[in-house]
């Protein structure tokens, strides 16, 4: 009975979650596909929009897809590592400027990013001159730039979680003579896999949908990410004509995220069986 209630509630929320998605799906399989003309039930079903999208000359969708997945995987992995380190320090150590540092981390994120574009241009114009491999139009430059945001929200997220891991655990390890590095890798990391997985997923999604910087950075049609490329599809006067393809693209964009989620899901719920605390 109580399980039924749970199911009912979750189903209602799921309905809320997917109703706009269904609408997009309907637009994507509607041959006369435009967002504005579509009802929830498509007037016809065809995969023409998907076919057009994947075979389009002007929109190298497959390349965008690959670029996005690569950038998102690389930068979320790197930023996970960086923010995990920082969160460990913020949660486990007491040092001068700790709380100020935490607050500063948060506040830095609050500055409107598009104002910073001027400075980003300034920095990367120099970088492009000196180190073309990390300059404009390179994936590596963009990943570097993304690492600038690695500490931001992720550190807060993980620090909060680390705080819930009892400190007796690492204290016990310290007594056993473990170094801080050993505690980090051996004690803390295994305990926080669910959080690591969640943070990795969030970082992945964040990079997948990042758009402002990628748009400034990537200017070859072939080097674009999904978010930038798809925005280009509906920018300007052509938005109407492209809405069907755009809807199809929007749906396909969700695939890598769902894939990563499926992959990470077992870690996210692993804590359930592992019984987080054995101390």
């Amino acid at each position, binding site marked *: 009975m109580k*399980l039924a209630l749970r199911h009912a509630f*979750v189903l209602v*929320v*799921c309905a809320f*979650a997917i109703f*706009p*998605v269904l609408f*997009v799906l309907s637009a994507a399989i509607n041959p006369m596909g435009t*967002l504005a*003309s579509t*009802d*929830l039930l498509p007037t016809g079903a065809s995969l023409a929009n998907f076919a057009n999208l994947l075979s389009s000359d002007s929109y190298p969708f497959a390349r965008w897809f690959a670029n996005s997945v690569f950038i998102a995987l690389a930068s979320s992995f790197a930023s996970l*590592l960086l923010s995990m*380190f*920082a969160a460990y*320090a913020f949660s486990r150590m*007491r040092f*001068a400027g*700790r709380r100020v540092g935490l607050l500063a981390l*948060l506040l830095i*994120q*609050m*500055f409107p990013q598009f104002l910073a574009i001027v*400075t980003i241009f*300034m*920095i990367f114009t120099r970088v492009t001159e*000196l180190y073309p491999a990390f300059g404009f139009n390179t994936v590596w430059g963009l990943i*570097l730039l993304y690492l600038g*945001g*690695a*500490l*931001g929200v992720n550190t*807060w*997220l993980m*620090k*909060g979680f680390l*705080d*819930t*891991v009892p400190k007796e655990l*690492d204290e016990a390890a310290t007594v056993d003579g473990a170094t*801080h590095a050993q*505690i980090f890798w051996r004690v803390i990391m295994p305990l926080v896999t*669910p959080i690591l997985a969640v943070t990795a997923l*969030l970082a992945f*999604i964040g990079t997948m*949908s990042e*758009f402002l910087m990628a748009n400034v950075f990537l200017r070859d049609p072939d080097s674009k990410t999904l978010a930038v490329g*798809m*925005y280009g599809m509906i920018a300007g006067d052509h938005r109407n004509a492209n809405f069907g393809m755009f809807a199809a693209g*929007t*749906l396909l964009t969700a695939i890598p995220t*769902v894939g990563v*989620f499926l992959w990470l*899901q077992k870690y996210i*719920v692993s*804590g*359930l069986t592992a*019984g*987080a*605390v054995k101390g």
Partner: protein
Amino acid sequence: MTLDVREAPRKGGETRTSPRPRREITTAFVVSRIAVLAVTAAILLYAVPPLVAAGSWVSLALLCAAAAAVACLYLTRRFIPAKYLIPGTVFLIAFQVFPVVYTVTTAFTNFGDGHRGDKAAAVTAIETGSVRQAPGSPEYALTAALRGDELVFLLVDPKTKQVRVGDANGLAPLAGAQVGVTGKVLSAPGLTVLKAPEAAARGQEISALAVPTGDGVIKANGLSRAVEGKAALVYDAGCDCVRGNGDTWRADEGQGYFVNAKGEHLAQGWQVGVGFDNFARVLTNPTISGYFAGVLGWNLVFALASVLGTFALGMSVALALHHPRMRGTRFYRILLILPYAMPAFAMLLVWRDLFNRDFGLVNQLLGVDIDWLGEPGTARLGVILVNLWLGFPYMFLVTTGALQAIPRELTEAAAIDGATPWKAFRRVTLPLLLVALTPLLISSFAYNFNNFNAIALTTDGGPFPADNPQVGATDLLITYTFRLAFGAGGAQFGFAAAISVFIFTIVAVISAVAFRRTRKQEEVYA
């Protein structure tokens, strides 16, 4: 005695308080040190040569100092927190702190459209823009050539077919040149005629060469034509003014413009410091001050509703799924993260169309005729709803993760003690969740307080009252102030930066107060 890792380094660190046996030098220790050194060396090897080549000694010194500091940091056993913080902080400083600091400094300037560059650039732009083709002068066919090492122009008058050679000193007739059908010179005695690729490679020299004539100068227009032109406006360093067209514009360093006696200015200006003018403008602008309270109120409601709404919904679903006998959780979870997996900007646009009065799905499904985004109340409800949809999967995910970390024994213990599920939740689960999530709620609040896209891509601030097109019902501080900064007369970055500083201060104060309250929670486990 076990406090070493948490000891503040300034107190002398672990050596003082470390009564336990000296650690042996492990392989991992050695290897990790070698790795750090190797990486530092590799970065230096890669980064130094271009800096040397470019002669950027300051950057080079900075780089070396940073590398030395990093090497020291990781080779010693001290400064443990720094070891963990530095990797991310390096990137943070380069790509976040520096841009923010630089942007804030622009708040003290008039940086913006019309005032982007320096004065020299403005003068160049004014002079270049005022060059007019001399009346009745020919359109020369241009051939670039070399006289020894010197670049010269071979100019063919299309009407008379007369060939002349032009250099930095002036024009001289040229005899014996062979002219092709296109009007370009094919060969000339004593000169090396440049072929197209050679000329293209010398494009900058060609652009720079000005051949003086009696009245003006002949300059290349592309690679195959040249025209005689004269700058109508000329900068005179003596009076620090621009003269021409029977008028004089004097440099006004306060405004960053050349201004004439009538108070009119030339279009091209330059960036100057304006002190606190931009800040004063924020405070005295009647549009900002007149509506500030109302907008701030709605802004707070929007941010709070977004945070609490997404948290409540996300947590509820996570709790509902957090049950050992719950089936289909994997399937549910996929559906629930879908809103988060779709590109946000696309879905914001989709939602805007869903809310369309005549063609939108919301009205069709509900069978009503509501102008959702056209009336203040429904528009506000609408944007909060959209933001709820966009944001709850995030909260769902983090709560799901946090729930795994809560020892099941605790809730079970509470159940054994006879607590109702609700009480167990209130007393055990929620407090523990909040330890993990309060920092996140604060950062989520701060994010939503400035959630530009959520408003800009749905209502763009609207609906607006008929008598005031500047402040709409769903405007956040950031959207309506940025409309002032970027809406008219192009982008005013300096003004926008000043606005950002104010908004930043508001968010900072709220967040800092909330953050202080987390100190207690942090100690729950301490």
